[in-house]
């Protein structure tokens, strides 16, 4: 057995290298550090502005260090606007859309991945083709359909048209095709139905793909502005993104309150991103490669 000592040495070498690598300076840092600064400045500026007085926000050149911390901006936002209601609306819409996408895209993606039916490839290509149509083109027809359904100015208008997306179907189909088909065959012989195979075998093994889809859908829905703008009129049905515009008037913008509201609205997004960034980044990478 000569293999063992060699493997052991290799392991040792690796371990010795590790701490060294941690402090290693790479020329890439010269590029990456400025990029990080550029990405962080708007966030910091938003945070700072949200803690300034209205007067301070109008000083030119802008100050990046506030003289006092105006925490009351946050309570003002909650007092002056139905911020809690908007937060709840956005949460309801986002959760419903995420669940809808996970369920419906799984079903469609599995059918496209594994079930042989007449015209499967053509239908799948059509689904993919819809990815190339910009939202602005389908906005008005979708509006007309949603109005026909009597959903205008309800949260349903935000949920129903977004319950399944071509992107999600594509993402899950690609992932399902990478799973070993023998598992599904074994389950079918073991007595599982098609749906049983999907829910008991395929989905439990698709964690990364489902997490990716959930995070991406969450971000899209949470941050969507244009579609709520044209379908929602009553302030009680506003989403966060719509609500934020109420701090922005034709003649003046209450910048400190707007930024305070902004900070509160991105907290869930940031939280989700930190929890799921592993999946998120891998997911983006997969969608780029597996096509």
């Amino acid at each position: 057995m000569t293999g063992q000592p060699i493997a052991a040495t290799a392991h040792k070498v690796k371990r010795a290298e590790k701490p060294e690598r941690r402090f290693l300076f790479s020329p890439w840092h010269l590029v990456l550090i400025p990029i990080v600064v550029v990405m962080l400045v708007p966030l910091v500026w938003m945070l700072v502005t949200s803690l300034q007085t209205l007067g301070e926000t109008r000083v030119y050149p802008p100050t990046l260090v506030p003289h006092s911390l105006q925490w009351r901006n946050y309570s003002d936002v909650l007092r002056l606007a139905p911020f809690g209601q908007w937060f709840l609306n956005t949460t309801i819409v986002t959760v419903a859309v995420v669940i809808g996408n996970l369920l419906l895209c799984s079903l469609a993606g599995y059918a496209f991945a594994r079930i042989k039916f007449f015209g499967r490839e053509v239908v799948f290509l059509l689904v993919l083709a819809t990815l190339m149509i910009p939202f602005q083109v389908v906005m008005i027809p979708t509006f007309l359909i949603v109005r026909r359904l009597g959903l205008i100015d309800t949260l349903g208008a935000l949920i129903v048209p977004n319950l399944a997306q071509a992107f999600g179907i594509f993402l899950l189909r690609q992932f399902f095709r990478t799973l070993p088909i023998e598992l599904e065959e074994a389950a079918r012989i073991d007595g599982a139905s098609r749906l049983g195979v999907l829910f008991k075998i395929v989905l439990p093994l698709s964690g990364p793909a489902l997490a990716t889809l959930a995070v991406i859908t969450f971000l899209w829905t949470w941050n969507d502005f244009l579609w709520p703008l044209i379908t929602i009129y009553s302030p009680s049905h506003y989403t966060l993104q719509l609500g934020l515009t109420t701090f922005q008037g034709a003649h003046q913008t209450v910048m400190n309150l707007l930024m305070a509201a902004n900070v509160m609205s991105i907290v869930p997004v940031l939280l989700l991103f930190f929890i799921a960034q592993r999946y998120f980044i891998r997911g983006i990478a997969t969608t780029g490669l597996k096509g």
Partner: protein
Amino acid sequence: MADITFDHVTKSFSETVFALDDLTLHVPDGQFLILVGPSGCGKTTALRIVAGLERPTTGDVRIGEVSMHGVSPRDRDIAMVFQNYALYPHMTVFKNLAFGLKERRTPKDEIKRRVGEVSAMLGLDELLKRRPAQLSGGQRQRVAMGRALVREPKAFLMDEPLSNLDAKLRVQMRAELKRIHQQLGITTIYVTHDQVEAMTLGERVVVMSAGKAQQIGTPQDVYRKPANLFVAGFIGSPAMNLLRGTVSGGRVVAGDLSFPCGEVGTQDVVVGIRPDCMSPLTDGRPTVEFQVDVVEPLGEQVVVHGSVAGSNVQSGAEEVEEIPLAIEGSRAAVTAVFEATREPAPGDRLSLGVTPERIHLFDAHTGDVIEGRDGWGAR
């Protein structure tokens, strides 16, 4: 428990490519049947058609006299063991074993009892809480077997279940499989490309090539009485020596080997000699002059590769990657196996006696065996 019938089953993936070509076969209840052949011969396709994972293009498969046309895999009550085991990676061993029972709504305590029995039989008790990733190859293989056994199905289908094990474990599991089959007596169709597995495990062997059953018979039959050149070349290790021969005046002549053969309806024949029918004893038997190239001692026996005068014939069962020994134009490669009492050296010239009763004769044009020769080809 049920018998399985292939009734003129054909499977084609395109107009010209036939994975299965008119296969008709009956597997009696309780039999251990082996489908053996080189890769791409259609043996796995045949198995998948029984499982319901593929539909036959024409023909029908019956399990227990019931046509399986349009019957989904879950309703066939068969169990299959896959080559890569196909264990559910997200489930524990217990759940893997119980999955099929759960899907069939077996009561909970019944599931527990049967999983308990099977895991005891296969020595899996200690592993029930582990996941497949935490098991060794042999353990995974046993779980895959257990998942099939626990269902108590009408028939087992096994697709090269031992091919991912190392050689020692494979021999062990082979014996284990045979024991389980003797114990339970459940109809089994077993696919393999390994002719040793086919010979040792099967009660009946189907040698397949190009989607067709070349020969169906007991392991002894296909070894002793190969029906054609393909079976002759495929079954047996080292492979049968095949030499080109001609018939004239009631005698077969192949190089310097010559023996009487009686009436044979053709002039061009192939002479087939198993390596173990050639030995340095010369007791009046027909002999060939043999030049030794390579000697492989195997303890009791010695395998000797070399050449004789004449030319080889391809059986069609040769592995593509097989490298022929460097033989001059007018000579044929021959392998002999005999007792190690006389170990020759490379370069030696020997006179090898050939047991005449065990020479096989094939028609060089059709490849079929020439039968009806008094006492020839059979022992």
